[in-house]
């Protein structure tokens, strides 16, 4: 636990990537571990293909639902460059877990902006502790590409002090029964990368 006795997790990505489900799983795992929990997500306009952020905080007693800059223990990015956009949320010793999935912004499609090159080098330069992974492939191998977000959670899970059972209970409680098994597999496969 940090000095304020509150741990912070930031999830970023693009609207429609399943960030809200991932946020629910983290919050639920912290609850199963017996902590006070607060989360925040922005709804509405940002969901239409915009850049989105979800924040989870847990500890003995949590006040603000918002994560302070420089304080997140983990930054999970469902898209390759979004981690760069929100890097200042991460604590100095924090871990970045990044999916290599690229989602081209409409500004790039219409030629008004460029998708940056050498993203992997930029990620490596930005984050001292980085796991860059093919989350989509891991999810596909587990049975469904949509479990990519859970594979990313698996990879970051060892950086948080939440017990294994709490994660499993959370996944069971948050996904539809027919998808529990493949999501657990995706979680474990992600975890093996950490």
């Amino acid at each position: 636990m940090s000095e304020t006795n509150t741990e912070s997790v930031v999830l970023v990505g693009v609207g429609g990537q399943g960030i809200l489900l991932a946020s629910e799983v983290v919050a639920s795992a912290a609850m199963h571990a017996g902590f006070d929990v607060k989360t925040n997500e922005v709804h509405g306009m940002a969901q239409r293909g915009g850049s989105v952020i979800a924040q989870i905080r847990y500890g003995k007693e949590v006040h603000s639902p918002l994560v302070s800059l420089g304080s997140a223990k983990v930054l999970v990015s469902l898209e390759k460059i979004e981690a760069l956009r929100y890097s200042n949320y991460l604590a100095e010793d924090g871990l970045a877990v990044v999916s290599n999935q690229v989602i081209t912004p409409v500004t790039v499609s219409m030629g008004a902006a460029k998708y940056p090159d050498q993203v992997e080098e930029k990620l490596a330069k930005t984050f001292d502790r980085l796991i860059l992974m093919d989350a989509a492939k891991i999810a596909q191998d587990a049975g469904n590409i949509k479990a990519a977000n859970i594979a990313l959670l698996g990879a970051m899970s060892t950086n948080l002090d939440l017990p294994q059972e709490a994660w499993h209970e959370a996944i069971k409680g948050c996904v539809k029964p027919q998808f529990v098994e493949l999501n657990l597999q995706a979680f474990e496969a992600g975890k093996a990368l950490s």
Partner: protein
Amino acid sequence: MAILMSGNQAIARGAYEAGISVASGYPGTPSTEILENVVQYKDTLYCEWAPNEKVAFEVAAAAAISGARSMVTMKHVGLNVAADPLMTLAYTGVEGGFVAIVADDPGMHSSQNEQDSRNYAIFAKIPLLEPSDSQEAKDFIKLAMELSEEFKTPVILRTNTRISHSRTLVETTERSGERNADFQKDPTRWVPVPLWAREMRVKVEERLGKLREAANKSKANRIEWRDKSLGIVVSSISYQYVREVWPEASVLKLGFSYPYPDDLIKEFSAGVDKLLVVEELDSLMEEHIRSIGIDCIGRDFIPGIGELSSDKLRQCRANMEGQKAPEYPIGEYVSELPARPPVLCPGCPHRGVFYALGKHDVVVTGDIGCYSLGAFKPLSRLDTILCMGGGVSMAHGMDKAGEKRKVVGMVGDSTFFHSGITGLLNIAYNKGNSTIFVVDNRTTAMTGHQEHPGTGLTLQGEPTVEASIEEIGKACGIKRVVTIDPYDIPTTMEKISAELEAEEASLIVSRAACPLRHRPVVEKVFQVDQDACVNCRMCTKIGCPAIDGGNDKPQINDVLCIACGICEQICPKKCIKLSDK
């Protein structure tokens, strides 16, 4: 066991527990999920989407006048629409408990302004409750019912984006306090004609004094004594930030924040060396505290524009103490990252209308909904936005002012039912020449797909009449009424051209269901034939997220494409073709 609930879920649970019998509202971020969660209790209480906030307010007001407990929900700008009944319900008062839930949006995450709706409680001289987390959001509904019935007054419960959309732990209880509707005839109470309204006016002031006493004693207001060198007066979400940034300071936390509990404020200020007021948006508490002769600091250090956060308040604290706050500059590469503005979804039917309108030199007065996104590049085919329904009336105003170009109004289906109809009636009545588009995607899309009077379903999921936009247009007196399929580009272009040339008002209903709601199963998607493509990039100018123009030649993302076919129709080389996924 405590349950993790958003503020909006908690308010819905609060409505159930507090014995509310009637809940009405109109969708609007960040308030929408309240009624979407209330509907799970539909076997116990009645809930509905009304066409607009004024109607919703009046429905709930009448339920409370008849003696039942009621609630109305809306976003902050919705209370502007409902301000008329609010101001006079404050005079008549209520018999059963009545609470208006209003959700502010500091920082304008999903709104056109960041008005501070606390002003309405002061304006109407009625109590204001401001929860700081989901538990309070739920508990304050019960408190609102008690206050409302004891003092025969409507109550405002003000939430905001961070309260409504944050999830925190909540302990639930059982339902109690339900009341029967049994209207008691008494014109001196319920008929505010001048004769009786003047008496009511006096009672409003007397009531305000009594409410102030109640606020002084309310459990929703509390002093947390800690170190006494600094005392902070705070309400709503800012309380949480203050507890993080000044963990050692004494705090006067206001949950029942208007009328201001002056005795409590005086007691608190007398017990601390320095008094700081931390409030988001307007300086209402600070100005009041000064007005009763108490010295305090606030706006000199706390910004009044945008939302607060622990980060911002840490900076404020550092400024107050002449220190430097730790800085966390944005990453080295952020400046080179492409922006991700919200865009119309792949396959959005509005795209066809914007594409066709883009061929004409017209002014488009727009409105509030997904089609607001048509203002952005590359579509850039919507020129003004003011308020709900404004797109219709404003086309007429610009036209009558003598605007040289043809003026086109654009409004969505839910927004048309909300407040577009009266604008259309005005155009017909006052012999306007505007062309009005209703872009009907069969749902209230931007707020997450709520039913409305045109969808044929109620909030409670019951089939009902479907209001016809075309018939309403005709009934208003519009002679030219046409319907288009926005996915059929040639016909859409032809019909739009014909209507724009007409020398009289016309109504164009563009009808196609929002694909995000119905999620059509597509077996074939469109692909760009890379050999035939001459890279003219026409297809990238319709702003479809499925068309990836970041390559040598445009490519279509087969996961995102829903085969709407708009790009195929506009490709000059006919090299976009259907193929298996």
